């Protein structure tokens, strides 16, 4: 019993409710948001430390023993993602203080953000499949609200698409859960895992596993289920796209990792092969999209797709190195996607356009913004001193050990394309001749750059301080390798 586990869910939830009570007092809303996110960050740090020292932490909600009650489980994988998620959403909220505008703030913007964080944290920490579904819905409902908030024409069109896709995938999720419950008679993850290990993963269980892959693939944006993502993520303002790009798809990826390492790991020649093939195509599709467009937001969105593919392949490698690489890259990608979208948001504030061809010469008056963007680009592509390198090198090492040469080749080639796509933004927007004079700029970057400084610093820390982060990531990978650790911690048999 450890009530600490629920704090990352509970603090944002209480905050969101309080913010609903004071809809008109924007200043107080901002203060409360900052206080609560600071508290959540501290709680998550203590949680990570606690898991590192004492092993997996569980909380049996309502004092009901699993598998009968709902259990919250914080293993290292979940705890690390909780911490990263909180920090990234903190910076996105700080960014929106300056950027989101009165119209949206007056309509519960900060409350919706807190509900979104509640859903994401809950999805990371839960140990029950139906509870996972509920937290997915909490997260999606708030994302529906955030995507449509403001009510511009493009937002209305894209939110209908987004809503339809997610309602269908949620319905599939419930159907998959119903099948699984019909087969094993329980929904507690640890219990499902041990039941399937006892009776063997029959063909019908494998089919249900594929159904889960389709569901989480729709949420996470893997090929061929990513089609809704580029349009929907382009609609809302940058502060919202940043939090979406950094958190939402990653929850889908996290769920795929969780169920295919904990529950459906008996038939890797079917499920893990399929994941691997889809991951490779996802990487390629993302890279192609990223180099095809001349639109800052579109390029960054396609880079999300590439990263999802890279992370997903960690499952197909299925060794400790592979998992560690996947986890490291997942943490890195949450941080760096947040940073890139926030920096692009600052660029949009200055120029009022996303079109690369209409920008130029920004470096003269915005050197800090420019060089930060440059650093973020290098980190994204995986240049050594920064964070992207460590994850990719672990994935490449794991891939070579298991003789997955195609994946290693594709991943390295995609790094090149990713670097080209973001450098295209950097070279064209920050250099060339100036397009806008001082007076023509649409807005100031005052206070907009600092949130991304936090993220870039974190990314540099993840790269330079890899020695410090390694033990945490490897503990997470160890738990993923050996499901019995997780089952033991939850069921205490």
């Amino acid at each position, binding site marked *: 019993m450890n*009530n600490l586990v629920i704090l990352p869910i509970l603090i944002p939830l*209480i905050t969101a409710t309080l913010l*609903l*009570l004071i809809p008109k007092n924007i200043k107080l809303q901002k203060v409360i948001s900052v206080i609560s996110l600071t508290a959540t960050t501290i709680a998550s740090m203590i949680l990570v430390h606690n898991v590192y020292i004492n092993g997996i932490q569980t*909380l049996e909600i309502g004092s009901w023993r699993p598998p009968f009650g709902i259990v919250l489980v914080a293993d290292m994988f979940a705890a690390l993602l909780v911490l990263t998620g909180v920090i990234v959403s903190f910076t996105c909220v700080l960014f929106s203080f300056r950027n989101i505008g009165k119209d949206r703030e007056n309509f519960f913007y900060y409350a919706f953000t807190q509900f979104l964080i509640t859903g994401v944290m809950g999805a990371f920490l839960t140990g029950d499949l139906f509870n996972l579904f509920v937290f997915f819905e909490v997260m999606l409902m708030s994302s529906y609200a955030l995507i449509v908030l403001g009510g511009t024409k493009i937002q209305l069109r894209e939110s209908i698409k987004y809503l339809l896709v997610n309602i269908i995938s949620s319905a599939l999720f419930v159907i998959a859960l119903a099948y699984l419950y019909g087969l094993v008679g329980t929904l507690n993850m640890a219990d499902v895992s041990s039941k399937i290990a006892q009776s063997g993963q029959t063909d019908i269980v494998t089919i249900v596993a594929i159904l889960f892959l389709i569901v989480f693939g729709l949420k996470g944006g893997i090929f061929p289920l990513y089609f809704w993502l580029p349009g929907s993520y382009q609609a809302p303002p940058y502060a919202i796209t940043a939090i979406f790009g950094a958190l939402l798809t990653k929850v889908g990826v996290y769920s795929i990792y969780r169920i295919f390492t904990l529950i459906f790991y008996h038939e890797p020649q079917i499920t893990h092969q399929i994941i691997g093939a889809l991951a490779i195509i996802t990487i390629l599709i993302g890279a192609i999209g990223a180099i095809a467009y001349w639109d800052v937001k579109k390029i960054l969105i396609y880079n999300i797709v590439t990263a999802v593919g890279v992370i997903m392949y960690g499952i197909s490698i299925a060794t400790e190195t592979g998992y560690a690489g996947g986890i490291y890259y997942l943490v890195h990608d949450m941080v760096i996607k947040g940073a890139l979208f926030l920096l692009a948001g600052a660029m949009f504030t200055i120029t009022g356009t996303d079109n690369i061809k209409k920008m130029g010469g920004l470096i003269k008056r915005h050197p800090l913004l420019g060089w930060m963007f440059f650093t973020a680009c290098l980190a994204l592509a995986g240049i050594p001193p920064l964070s992207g390198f460590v994850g990719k090198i672990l994935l490449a090492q794991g891939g070579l050990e298991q003789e997955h040469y195609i994946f290693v080749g594709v991943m390295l080639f995609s790094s090149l394309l990713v670097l080209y796509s973001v450098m295209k933004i950097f070279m064209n927007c920050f250099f060339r001749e100036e397009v806008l004079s001082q007076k023509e700029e649409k807005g100031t970057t005052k206070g907009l750059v600092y949130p991304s400084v936090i993220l870039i610093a974190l990314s540099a820390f993840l790269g330079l301080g890899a020695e410090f982060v390694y033990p945490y990531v490897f503990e997470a990978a160890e738990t993923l390798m050996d499901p019995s650790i997780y089952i033991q911690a939850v069921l205490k048999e």
Partner: protein
Amino acid sequence: MKVNDLILQTVTTLLSFIIIIFSVYLFFAGHYTPGGGFIGGLMTSAALVLLLLAFDIKTIRKIFPFNFMTVAAAGLLISILTGVAAMFFDVPYLTHTFGYVELPILGETALASTLIFDLGVYLVVVGIAMTIIQTIGESE
């Protein structure tokens, strides 16, 4: 032609009370028989909707002079805090307890702390349902 809805309004004033009393009954019955916060809350909002149909939005505002959004938020807060209260007794979040209490008129009654949680659900359902209906009703 002026519409005369005297019959509707008279019947509504009587009927809404019966519906609200039934909804309160459903709310309290939930622990041992079918019912509970959700259906009780829906029933109450049904009574309020009937009032809305018979009269108009302004009259309803006058009878219930509070923001239903606040009602929903308060309900949510009540539900969350019943869980938080458990944490102070050093048991997991949302652990509930019950006991037998000697009440003045009702005699010995079993009271469970889940009732407070259910009260939160009740308020959320009423608040959300009324917010939806009022918002759609007011928009042109």
